[in-house]
Structures are given as C-alpha cells and as structure tokens.
C-alpha cells in the first residue's frame, strides 16, 4: 500500500464503518436537544392533496405551514432562522399529532385543529386578524369587511386582506374562509386554486 495516494490511504484507514448512519444520529440529536431545551423550531414535511407542506413548530405551537410547491424548504427554513431562531432541526416525530390531524382534515374526517399555534411571525394587527379568522367555523365563509369590522377597523378591509395574504399558518388558520363581499374569491397565499380546493373539501367535495 506504500504507493497509495494520501487520500485513498486515509479513506482506507477510516474503513467503511466510517460512512455511518447520520439519519439515526440526527434522530438521537433531536431527542437530546429537545430534552436540553435547545430545540427552538422542529419541522417536518407532510404530503397533502395541495402538494407537500412544510410544518414547523416552536415550543408554543405551530408557527409556520408552507406550500412546498411554491417555496423551497431552504427558503422557508431561512425565514424561520432569521425571524424565530436558527436552532432548527428536522424532527418528524415531534410533529406526529399535527401530521395526523392534517391528514384527517384532508380526508374529510376532521373539522377543527386541536393543537396550539404560535403567531411569532406576525405583527400585532395581523395577529388580531388571524385570531378572528381562526374563529370562522369549518365549511363557512366570512368577508374581509366582516373581519375588519369585528376587530374594530371597519374601513380596513384591504389591510385585513394583506394580513391574510401573509398568513404564516394557512389551512390551520383558515384564511381560505375569508372571501370578498359579493361572492368573489379574493386572494390566497397559496394561489386561488388552493383556496377553491380547500373550500371544496369543506363542502364535502
């Protein structure tokens, strides 16, 4: 082996065993990081009829749900790193409950989500809009104007639209249930086709 180049020599000395299971090591790390209070944001991806979703939670609750057909995982994680904390780990098992409820919702077997949310990515006005929106029942719709009136800003329907347009937790905070006065769909953070799809799911279609 005296004629081997240095790199091959070192690779051989490390053996095949050196290419170990980093996925298993990652799962162990998640458990220990959570136990030591070092895991600020856990995330996973969940398949859905609207394409893959990224779901992220803090210790307070679900902080972000993103349509991965529109945005890359990397872009969503960078936003979370900058706005919440860079201590982010992929941790599917920490989001088992959220995944299960989303699957039930898409299968038409669930009308409400029963897990906490964290509005850390929204400002105070948007937080009021989203909190009001979260109270619209499954299968019903409200208008931008009604939401504006309910939070005491009757003339701020456009600002309500903007706040809903940047809803960091679509589906869970049902901004798809807010439409235009007169019946128009209005906008949607994930595109109008997704808004129509979600409303159809809630009509039992």
């Amino acid at each position: 082996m005296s004629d081997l180049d240095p790199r091959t020599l070192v690779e051989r000395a490390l053996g095949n065993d050196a290419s170990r299971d980093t996925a298993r090591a990652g799962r162990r790390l998640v458990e220990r990081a959570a136990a030591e209070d070092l895991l600020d944001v856990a995330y996973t991806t969940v398949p859905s009829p609207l394409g893959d979703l990224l779901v992220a939670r803090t210790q307070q609750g679900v902080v972000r749900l993103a349509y991965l057909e529109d945005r890359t995982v990397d872009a969503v994680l960078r936003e979370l790193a900058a706005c919440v904390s860079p201590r982010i780990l992929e941790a599917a098992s920490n989001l088992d409950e959220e995944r299960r409820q989303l699957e039930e919702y898409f299968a038409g077997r669930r009308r409400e989500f029963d897990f906490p949310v964290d509005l850390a990515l929204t400002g105070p006005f948007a937080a009021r809009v989203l909190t009001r929106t979260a109270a619209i029942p499954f299968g019903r719709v409200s208008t931008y104007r009604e939401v504006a009136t309910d939070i005491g800003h009757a003339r701020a329907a456009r600002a309500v639209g903007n706040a809903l347009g940047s809803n960091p937790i679509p589906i869970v905070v049902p901004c798809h249930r807010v439409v235009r006065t007169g019946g128009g769909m209005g906008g949607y953070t994930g595109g109008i086709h997704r808004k129509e799809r979600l409303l159809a799911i809630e009509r039992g279609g």
Partner: protein
Amino acid sequence: MALPPFQTFLDRHAAELLRFLVAMVGPEEAEDCFQETCLAALRAYTRLRDDSDLRAWAFTIARRKAIDAGRARGRRPMPVPEAGDDGSPQATAVDDAGAWAPLATLPPRQRAAVFLRVAAELPHREVARILDCSEEAARRSAHEGLKRLREEMT
C-alpha cells in the same frame, strides 16, 4: 450573510464530522462523541457571528469533544496505554475496530492533522487554527502522521 438554519449546517457537515470523529476516537465511540459535538454546537450556535467559518468552527468543537472522550476513557479503570499529546490514549481501541487500528497508533494530534489536511483538504493554516498550534507544527503533524500511517498499513 445570516446564520443558516442549524439543520442546514448539519446537512452540510454531519457526515464529515462523524468521519473526523471516527478518525479521532474510533468507530465505537464516534457516534457518542458526535452527539456531544452537535449539542455543544447547538448550544453555542446563537452566539456565533454571522460571518463565522462554520466548518472550521465545527471541527474545533469536535476535536475538543474527542479530547474529552479520551480523558473520560483514561479515568475509567481499564488498562490504557500511555496518553497522547492531548490527553487521549494512543492505541486503546485497536482490537475493537480492525480498520481503525493503523490510525489508532498515531498520536491524536497527528490523527487530527492527517484527517483535516488529507480527507477534509484544509490548508495548513486552517488545520493549525483548529489544532490551536503553529502552522509549522500542523504541517509537521500531518507529514509525520501520514508517514506513520503508510508504514502501519504496509
């Protein structure tokens, strides 16, 4: 540039760090050492400056954890050969890991220098920073380590 999400940092560096630790402490202990390295990194992560060299930083932590593991092993009541230049024994795990045996005969500093220079392809200046020694000492460690490794494997 902003600090990347920790998962992105791991995706980039985990495999290489694990291999570095296999070189340093052997395959038996590498994963435990890797866990300690990641937890220490996660703990310190939010205090980093945005423009930190994350790769060198991670190797620095991993090397420190390898030294800790060596010391802990030294405290355990088992027959251990003389300690190396940074506290870890030189050739304890020879029998529990066949492939690692030649590397285990190197002093820890040479093990680190050889890996960082040859496998990680870092310049001597970077290796010196990670090992906290002079560039000349890093160069010598890599050179002598490689020579010895070649002898052991021939």
